């Protein structure tokens, strides 16, 4: 906690710049396009697409990115390609009356072009569960499904509270790639899942979502468990140099697959419970 405060003090700009906008504004500081009766929505990130379906307005979604594969019903919606630097022409061809962007600097030109075409936009950056709650309330107001949004949020908060327990876990290293070794840092959603499951991310000092490190550092941090995708773990098992890491040598590896771990959604409580059970089952 003290460390977090210090980091914020030394990086005032970065922390103050975190999107916590006033009511009525989206994450980019734009006023919400209230009064728009959105019937044709293009959603440009996996988290917002899934959220729209969870809010019960999936039938109004007419475009998604090629990475938005949840829920299954979303696959029936036409893909418009990428969500970062989207193809504006393809987005407009869906004749949307609302475009939900992932708020990022790379999207600024595309947002401006869509607005210039006269289509209202909302920019949201849903990277964690707090963001998800904020996004739910905001879209609930905007799309006229406030009651549904409120009950979703209350339900999520209750389920998260039920899961809350003293941190009894150890330290986990989260590995997303092996050539070179790339680990997940503090600002990734998976890191939040691990922490809510009562474990610590041994690379929690890395501010970025992910970063390249050497195997030496992974070994020296002595994670109790090493978490990765199935193919990453298979690679690690077959390479002699990784045996330097205790967790690898002693087979304390946990494979996590699935989108519940990659973007915030209302499936998060189940994901947290699953992680907690899987990590508890690893002999220490």
């Amino acid at each position, binding site marked *: 906690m003290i460390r977090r405060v210090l980091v914020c003090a030394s990086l005032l700009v970065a922390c103050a710049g975190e999107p916590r906008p006033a009511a009525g504004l989206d994450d980019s500081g734009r006023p919400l396009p209230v009064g728009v009766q959105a019937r044709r929505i293009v959603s440009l990130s996996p988290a917002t697409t899934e959220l729209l379906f969870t809010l019960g307005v999936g039938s109004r979604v007419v475009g998604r990115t090629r990475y938005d594969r949840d829920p299954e019903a979303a696959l029936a919606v036409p893909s418009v390609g*990428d969500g970062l630097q989207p193809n504006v022409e393809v987005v407009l061809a869906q004749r949307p009356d609302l475009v939900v962007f992932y708020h990022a600097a790379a999207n600024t030109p595309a947002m401006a072009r869509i607005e210039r075409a006269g289509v209202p936009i909302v920019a949201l950056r849903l990277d964690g569960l707090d963001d998800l709650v904020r996004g739910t309330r905001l879209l609930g107001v905007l799309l006229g499904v406030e009651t549904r949004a409120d009950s979703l949020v209350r339900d999520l908060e209750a389920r998260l509270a039920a899961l809350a327990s003293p941190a009894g876990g150890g330290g986990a290293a989260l590995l997303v790639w092996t050539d*070179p070794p790339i680990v997940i840092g503090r600002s990734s959603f998976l890191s939040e899942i691990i922490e809510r499951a009562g474990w610590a991310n041994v690379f929690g000092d890395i501010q970025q979502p992910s970063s390249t490190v050497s195997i030496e550092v992974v070994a020296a941090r002595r994670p109790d468990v090493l978490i990765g995708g199935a193919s990453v773990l298979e*690679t690690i098992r077959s390479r002699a140099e990784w045996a*330097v890491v205790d967790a690898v040598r002693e087979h304390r590896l946990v494979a996590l697959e699935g989108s519940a771990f990659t973007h915030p959604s209302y499936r998060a409580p189940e994901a947290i419970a699953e992680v907690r059970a899987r990590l508890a089952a690893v002999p220490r």
Partner: protein
Amino acid sequence: MRWVVLGVLSLVVMGVAVVVGPAPIPVSDVWAALLGRGDTVIVGIVRDLRVTRVLLAFLVGGSLAVTGAALQALVRNPLADPYLLGLSGGAGLGAVAAVSLGIGGAWGVPAAAFAGALLAIVVVYRLALAAGHVMDPRVLLLGGVVVGAFAASVMGAFIALSPAAEVRSAMVWLLGGFSGASWLTLTVFGGYAAAPLAFLVGVSRPLDLLTLGEEPATMLGADVERLKRALYVAASLLTAAAVAVAGIIGFVGLVVPHGIRMVWGHGHRQLIPAAFVVGGTLLVVADLIARTAFAPLEMPVGVVTAVIGVPVFVVLIRRWRD
């Protein structure tokens, strides 16, 4: 005397690179770990990670510098470096294609990079011979540049069409690094590189003749045509293996041979072995900086070689012109 200084310097540098790393370990523990005593993790870090990494960096750096020196003599162009002849493009395409197409596994990316580099070598070699039965260094250069450019644009297509995160990983791999160092990669690379390295050291005298020009070299008794082809094949095969174990590491092959020529003269009998030792030492230093400067984060070693290689080179050029 020069050789003694160079040898001692490189040994000291390698020693420092084994002692210093992103995980702080006291010197006494490093020494104990080298002898196999102490905590298993520390023994593993020192013996299996640091020692292999330092040795692999030295071998790769030496190979790149020797290859650069030989290619500069072959094409008689001071701009020649190990990747000039389409190799970086071929290797990059192989690596990115493997990641995009999901050809993973423990050795997927390095093997695909090696295959891509070999493909580029074959195409450029055929191109260079297409204009008659003589290998023309000018056609070799042009062929290398266009094949490299073509491979780079196909690579661009893969990048544009593939999921961003995975391709980013392949790009980071291409920027170079020794995170894959192990006794296995060290043995494989060392065994493989021995033959081309021995060949390049052995042709020092014909290389001296070749730098005089092809006609004078022929008149002085060199079988120029065979020499050129063998040089190209040996240098390219060596570079392809270097790419497979460490990605693309720029500037070592360009800067080191020129630097040695400026301070030590042009004779290849001195130049080639000196390039091996200096190139190896330089890359060990660059890798040391890459893994410790921003610890626990690691930088691509190719970035470091450029950052230290270019200023050194600028100083050398200024001295040379005075």
